[in-house]
């Protein structure tokens, strides 16, 4: 991709990456600069914008296609825009990407047997948490009189308690 674009697919650790990591396809110098995408309809524009945000750039550290300046990300953006202009639906584009790069490209993980825990775990945890909380509060409820005491009542109670303790000890 264009030399005129910052390569920084990675922020802090990028220098280290160059020292130790595999050489990634991020410095290919020949691709033409990507022209801004122009779509015929608002729907196409919207699904393009959604896709480039929800698909992960595989060469980058952790960026989606719109954030990334990597050449591959630009190619994929172009490819997606071409597909959408040709009338492809969002899920067709997703299928296309998954067939080539695997589930890894989906920032929205698919719902399947391995990810049920991921998708439904938090909800289940909240139900469990709130149920436990309800049980605990319910059990403790009996320890308190139903109506809040007024100031006078509290003072009287304190006097009574004090007397009671003196009496019992």
């Amino acid at each position, binding site marked *: 991709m*264009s030399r*005129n*674009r*910052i*390569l*920084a697919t*990675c*922020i*802090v*650790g*990028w*220098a*280290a990456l160059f020292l*130790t990591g595999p050489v990634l396809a991020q410095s290919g110098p020949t691709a033409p*600069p*990507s*022209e*801004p995408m122009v779509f015929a309809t608002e729907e196409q524009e919207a699904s393009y*914008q959604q896709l480039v*945000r*929800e698909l992960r750039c595989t060469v*980058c*550290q*952790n960026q989606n296609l719109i*954030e990334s300046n990597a050449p591959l990300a630009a190619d994929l953006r172009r490819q997606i825009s071409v597909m959408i202009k040709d009338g492809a639906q969002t899920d067709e584009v997703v299928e296309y990407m998954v067939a080539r790069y*695997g*589930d*890894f*490209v*989906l*920032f*929205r*993980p*698919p719902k399947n047997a*391995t*990810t049920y*825990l*991921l*998708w439904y*775990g*938090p*909800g289940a*945890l*909240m139900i469990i*948490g709130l149920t*436990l*909380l309800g049980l605990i*509060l*319910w059990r*403790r*409820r009996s*320890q*308190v009189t*139903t*109506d*809040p005491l007024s100031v006078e009542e509290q*003072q009287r109670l*304190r006097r009574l*308690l*004090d007397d009671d303790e003196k009496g019992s000890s």
Partner: protein
Amino acid sequence: MIAEIGLFALILALLLAVAQGTLPLVGAARGDVALMAVGRSAAYGQLLFLGIAYAMLTYAFVTDDFSIAYVANHSNSLLPIQYKFSGVWGGHEGSLLLWVLILGFWSAAVATFSRSLPREVLARVLGVMGLIAIGFIGFTVFTSSPFERLLPAAMEGRDLNPMLQDPGLIIHPPMLYMGYVGFSVAFAFAIAALIGGRLDAAWARWSRPWTAVAWAFLTVGIGLGSWWAYYVLGWGGWWFWDPVENASFMPWLMGTALLHSLAVTEKRGSFKNWTVMLAILTFSLVLLAAFLVRSGVLTSVHAFAVDPERGVYLLAFMGIVVASSLTLFAWRAGKVGLGGSFGLVSRESALLTNNVLLAVSGAAVLLGTLYPLFLDAFGLGKISVGPPYFEAVFLPLMLPLLLLLGFGPRLRWKQDSPTEQLWRLRWIFAASFVFGMIWPLFVGTWSFMAGIGAFLGLWIAGSALKDLVERIRPRPESQQSIGTRVRRLGRSYVGMQSAHLGVALVVVGITFVLGYDDERDVRMVVGETVEVGGYGFRLEALEEVQGPNFTADQATVVVYKNGERMTTLTPQMRQYFSQEQPMAQTSLHRGIFRDLYVNMGEELPGNAWVMRVYYKPYMNWVWAGVILMGLGGFLSASDRRYRVRVRREEELPVDRADQDPATVTG
């Protein structure tokens, strides 16, 4: 010489940490006053030597000493001076030095401000902080010394990453680390209490201001990081649900829960076990954050250089700290009494519900962050968990919390009548719902989700303001003027309401910026105009400009509103001398109801550029909210009751009326 002095000072600090981490604890166990007293001097000494080490590294940066590998890798003789100071924490080793320096600072702060604590308690707290310091200073000395020499010395430094050459990055890491490391104080107090076997209201009162300050720093630190990302990364994003961001968000969520739980423990003596657990968990998540950021286990845009040795060390350190504290917890926790009782609807139950919701949200973030690792470890494939997941899962978890936030702070301790409170808030509730649903119409196309967000923001703010007004409104039975009433509110209360108003602003800001931002990538030549969010952006000129360590292509973009010239933006595409790749510099026009944001993309044939133009509504509400939240934390920590010399714990008022007969005898 400089590097050797620095390393030597660091090693001395380590030795002092060993003294601080052992002698006071032994002293406290044996009742030996002299040994206990070591804690304070060791803490001061440690801070001194860490300060020297830090000063040496800074000196090396300022004097361009490229015989030190770290300086050669993170500085350059042309680097502007302010970035030579901030470059000290521009990489793993130096940022770790900043981390231990801040740890030393917190230790010394505890030694200074907690003189009135019982001797044993202070000794144990400082002892625990010493143990933590051993771990981190040891990590610096043994795996990540910033003083390593480079032989032969480099002629010129490789320069600080241009992304880090920014004012936001000067203050973000120190703030963030003040927050992270500050939670070690809350942790140390919790462990000290567990060791001493005394978990009581006094313990909660002592650790609460420390927790509030740490929380406030972390809030501001995270906010600054986000603020920096927003204008530096140049595509309008400000929160990415990146593992490293999540790593800072988890301790924040848990710290928020801790802050609220401490309130109950201080005021009512309840939830002691739970509060201790939260203090341990919060600090464990800080350690986890350090591990995730510095070990390379997860891919992140922000991660430091990857080195498995460091990962092993940090994991072992975290394992020892957390496992021993949880063991201590399991051993001691059962012995703690029940505390004051409370009813089904009361301030206590509201705060407990808040805790449960925050803990579940934290767990959700943890699950999402580690799930790819989990699947990979079991060979079940590689997946990515990103913003769409967190927006789908995390945001709904926030809804009940935000609803509760408008209601909970008004509940009385111990027991309250739900119907009465709901009845009192009925107009606030109805009004915020109606106006919340209308509000999005003024921003863009109406949507239900935006309406809900606006409603929640209004509801929280409305309820907080109503409470405030009720407290300062003149009453017939009282002679106090409004001024006196305002003064008598107490910083703790004002801090709480400030933080809650901050939440309201953040909620509204996030709702609208997520729902209504607009963005265009357009090819532009000089003289062309593009329309975004009702504003016209006209490219007036393209020129070359010179900076101290870069040259840049600069675009002059004039913004028009209704045909009138409003402002001029000058984004740049900078070519730093030390870097191969150019870097875009965003230009922003900030406003109360929207930011306008222009960034240069790439040069196109025909003297044209791709310009990225953004319209970000209500963005500044988020930043303002974060500031209010941070301010709230600092305010409540400075409440009068924490400033007066803490009385000895036996003298702390114990409200007998709060103690239910059933619990007192049973």
